[in-house]
């Protein structure tokens, strides 16, 4: 599941062929050789978890925007609110959390793989691809649950995971990535206080040293908010970076801003990836405030990327 540069080019070229002839002309997979996709977190106005309109709305949104590939959140796949994953430590103290977490675990262990395969089919029928399954592995997972989650990613057709996780959980995941031969790309935030969090180059390097199946999903906005340099990171770790989350934040834990208005060197990063032909996918993540719809704002984000990659 780990792609060389040549294989990456083939995937980008072949992806539209998988779609219907009418669809392939409208869907975008790359701009000047730079792989483009989106993180489904960008859609803030979706129906709630378990709503039968959820997946069709994501598909409809992606087609309206014209982007063909995504990293999909587990909260958009599993019929549970995202706090049921146990990732947010604060949420573990919420009333009813333990029951919710236990119900979600029971569901994960019993749901047939056809559930995930059906979602994959809906995407593929629309000419879309789920490239990464975003699951936030954490200490509330049992080993059996971790195994099932890897099986789920395969059934979705994902190449691997993106994961907001912690270093201690990465250590637990080593035998799972080795056994399933599937990568987990660590996603960073910008908590510089907790040394278990992914936020600095050192935290990534600690995980990358644990297994060749560990990769990076570098969120360049959060990285800058933590006063780190994404350009330097990508130059050093381009061979272990699966994708980046493209967002614009201010330094010093500053806010999300519309693309081009924060401190994140989006243009420099995208051009570096283009010019060096790094096989790094660039996934849009919309999270700045707006009164407009998520679809409209993701289109604006995409327009910005088109301009800087022109």
């Amino acid at each position, binding site marked *: 599941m780990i792609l060389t540069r040549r294989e990456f080019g083939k995937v980008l070229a072949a992806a539209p062929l998988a779609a219907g002839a009418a669809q392939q002309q409208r869907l975008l997979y790359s701009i000047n050789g730079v792989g483009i996709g989106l993180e489904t977190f960008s859609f803030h106005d979706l129906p709630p978890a378990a709503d039968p309109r959820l997946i069709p709305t994501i598909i409809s949104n992606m087609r309206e925007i014209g982007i063909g590939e995504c990293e999909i959140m587990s909260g958009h796949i599993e019929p549970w609110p995202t706090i049921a994953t146990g990732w947010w430590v604060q949420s573990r103290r919420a009333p009813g959390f333990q029951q919710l977490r236990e119900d979600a675990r029971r569901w994960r262990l019993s749901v047939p793989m056809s559930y995930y395969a059906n979602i994959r089919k809906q995407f593929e029928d629309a000419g879309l691809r789920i490239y990464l399954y975003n699951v936030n592995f954490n200490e509330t997972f049992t080993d059996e649950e971790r195994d099932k989650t890897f099986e789920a990613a395969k059934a979705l057709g994902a190449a691997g995971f993106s994961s*907001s996780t912690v270093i201690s959980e990465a250590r637990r995941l080593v035998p799972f990535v080795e056994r399933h031969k599937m990568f987990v790309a660590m996603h960073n935030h910008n908590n510089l206080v*907790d040394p278990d969090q992914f936020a600095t180059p050192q935290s990534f390097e600690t995980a990358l040293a644990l297994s060749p199946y560990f990769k990076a999903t570098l969120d360049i906005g959060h990285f800058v908010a933590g006063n780190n340099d994404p350009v330097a990171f990508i130059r050093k770790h381009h061979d272990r970076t699966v994708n980046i989350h493209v967002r614009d*934040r201010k330094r010093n834990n500053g806010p999300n801003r519309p693309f081009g208005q924060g401190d994140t060197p989006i243009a420099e990063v995208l051009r570096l990836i283009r010019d060096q032909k790094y096989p790094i996918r660039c996934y849009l993540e919309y999270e700045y405030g707006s009164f407009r719809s998520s679809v409209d704002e993701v289109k604006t984000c995409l327009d910005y990327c088109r301009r800087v990659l022109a």
Partner: protein
Amino acid sequence: MPGLLPPRAGIVLIAVFAVAAPGDAQAPRGKADAGGLPAPTPELERGRAVYVLSSCHFCHGVDLTGAQMGATDLMHSPLIAADQNGNVIGPVVRAGKPNLQTAMPSYPDLTSQEIADLAAYVHYLRRQGRYRELTMDGDDQGDARAGETYFNANCAACHSKSGDLTGVAAKYGGAALRARVLRPSDDRAPTGTDRTAVGRLQHGKLLERYAPADVRNLISFLRER
């Protein structure tokens, strides 16, 4: 309310309780956008703009319900209950919370006016939400003695069961009495210094702080002959 009101404010509170319509008059009007429904006044709409354009709604919800990603439930947060005109909200928003698992961003560039507008809007959302939540309770079987204690501590400076509230339980039955207790007047913009505004402000603060049992107990006390 003792200690919080200027002299003679109680007279105004009595008037507010007695004559104003219950709160559905302040339901927002207009078409929803990605930041929720438009606010009912220009002042609150300014606050909504700060709330939405700072992307507070992505984590705390467009109406303070459905807090996501481990964000604080602002509908029930004691910090929001303690806030007065942004004196608690402002420092938190400006500094952010970098030590949270996914770090709440800081907003150091917000002006004092923007913080005040933001705080007013958050309190407005909270009153709206608490009103909905507490009117859905439906259980009016409380502890009248506990209600009397609450009344004496929080209401007696302005109201008297044998004075302005004589017969109130007979006049309003069930849900209507509960609605009167929760929101005796339109408090969409409880600003200003006049006596009516002060009364609205105090009732708004109580609405933000009531526990469900407080309301049940108060209703039981008011119904007691």
